[in-house]
């Protein structure tokens, strides 16, 4: 009777396996033959954080996680892309939605501000957006001294505005849980404007207090960039010495080692040989070094 269970023969099981294998094989063959359309730029369908908040009734936090993953993937994908013109335009909207969906998403404010301020081609170099993101974090969690510290950091390191940086550090130092080094840091930034020591102090504090491995890595990279700046300053007199001897800049490091001015090719703290411009004699980190691009040199 049709209502009773039917025991199928082994043939149907074999057919099932064959069909599955056949379908997969065809898919693999098809993959090689398909003509891919030109890559479409990433589309961000919902731009409004308020609308997104309402659409995710009761599940805001998990959607914030999805948007955070999207932001990190978007930043990483764009940074590693080989496009001539890298477009980071969607980074801030993604971070804005992330932090609107979960206003307590601490790392999205802190790491997001670092990603936004990172100079092109490693990031969009949008310091005003980084500050705006941190200000949003301060509105949500006014007790977080870390956001004041990060805003001061953006002002000092990327915008070169020592006064604005000191103002942020001072405001942060007034908060109940602020560390005791924040107020002296404000003074140090103002007193040593343009000096590398203040920058080193900032990066070192971030390395020690960074709540997350990524923040600590960013701090280590910043410290290595400062080391590279010092190396470059030490190397410059050798370039000038060569110029005085030959009336031109060296074509490469081999001319300096050949003429016994240098013993070895100089390498940056990440282990990459510095680039020497034979026309201007200027020294920079190599484009393939993780320290590239360096911010423009600190005077003094």
């Amino acid at each position, binding site marked *: 009777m049709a209502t009773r269970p039917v025991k199928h023969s082994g043939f149907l099981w074999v057919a099932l396996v064959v069909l599955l294998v056949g379908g997969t094989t065809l898919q693999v063959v098809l993959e090689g033959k398909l003509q891919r359309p030109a890559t479409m730029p990433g589309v961000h369908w919902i731009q409004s954080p308020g609308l997104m908040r309402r659409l995710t*009734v009761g599940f805001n*936090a998990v959607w914030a996680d999805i948007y955070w993953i999207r932001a990190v993937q978007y930043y990483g994908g764009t940074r590693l892309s080989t496009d001539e013109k890298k477009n980071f335009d969607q980074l801030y909207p993604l971070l804005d939605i992330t932090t609107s969906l979960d206003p307590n998403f*601490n790392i999205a404010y802190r790491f997001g501000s670092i990603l936004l301020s990172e100079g092109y081609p490693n990031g969009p170099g949008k310091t005003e957006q980084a500050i705006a993101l941190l200000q949003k974090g301060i509105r949500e969690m006014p007790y977080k001294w870390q956001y004041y510290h990060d805003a001061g950091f953006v002002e000092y390191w990327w915008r070169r505005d020592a006064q604005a940086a000191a103002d942020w550090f001072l405001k942060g130092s007034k908060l109940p849980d602020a560390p005791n080094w924040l107020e002296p840091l404000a003074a140090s930034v103002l007193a040593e404007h343009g000096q590398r020591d203040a920058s080193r102090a900032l990066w070192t504090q971030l390395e020690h207090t960074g709540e997350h491995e990524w923040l600590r890595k960013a701090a280590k990279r910043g410290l290595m960039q400062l080391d590279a700046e010092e190396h470059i300053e030490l190397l410059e007199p050798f370039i000038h010495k060569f110029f005085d001897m030959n009336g031109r800049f060296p074509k490469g490091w081999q001319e300096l080692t050949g003429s016994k001015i240098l013993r070895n090719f100089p390498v940056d703290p990440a282990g990459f040989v510095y680039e020497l411009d034979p026309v201007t004699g200027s020294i920079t980190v190599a484009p393939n070094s993780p320290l590239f691009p360096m911010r423009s040199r600190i005077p003094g």
Partner: protein
Amino acid sequence: MRSIAIIAGGVFRDSIRDRIGYGLVFFSIMLMASSYLLAQLTAGQDVKIIKDLGLAAASAIGLFIAVFFGIGLVTKEVERKSIYSLLSKPVTRTQFVLGKYFGLVLTLLINLSVMVLAFYAVLLYFEMTTLDGAKAAWEAPALDPRMLKAFALIGVELMFITATAIFFSTFSSPFLSVAMTFAVYIVGHFGEDLKNLNAIVQSVVLPYITKAIYYVMPNLSALDVKSAVVHGLPVSGTSMVLATGSCLVYIATLLVGAILIFSRRDLK
């Protein structure tokens, strides 16, 4: 009381026969599998995301069970005509509605408990396999017992949704009942928007209407402390008690309404 317990037991047995438990096993496996995948994608926010995902999954799975099983509790009995044999026994319609309600609540609470165990098992694994240095970045411990507060309030919310589903199913078609139950859930989470509508609309009357709806409808967002517990923020016992108390009053209201409507319904 005995009749209510017998009907509730029947609902619980039916739910096991309907294989709701399989969904939970699937939930647990997905949670564990996603933990490993997400750890690679989230820039160190793995524990936060596992917590968010676990709480959201418990809430969403519970919501669907409450809505779809809650609606079916009464309508299926009526459609299959099995209610005639049930009501021919010494069972009142009040006992029938309450028995169905408590049966599904029992199922939901047991399901929720299984999800809590699976959730903490995943977090325990993370706790054991994470280096101390990485743990320093966590806003709250992986096995933070405060997350039980969120689960408790999810349970209260599910009890409310079940009552809403049963209420609508006593007088409406299954499709409409599902739509209206979800509508109540959504409006319940839009409380603040309803209350503050006067800030964005020009109308004089509309803000009064929405404010009235705000006070009449339960404020389900008060039961949503998922984000707070994940970030290790304090959740006061007073607010939990008030939110739960308010919800229990709504549940009682809905059940009384459901009993009144179902008692007057002509089942012929």
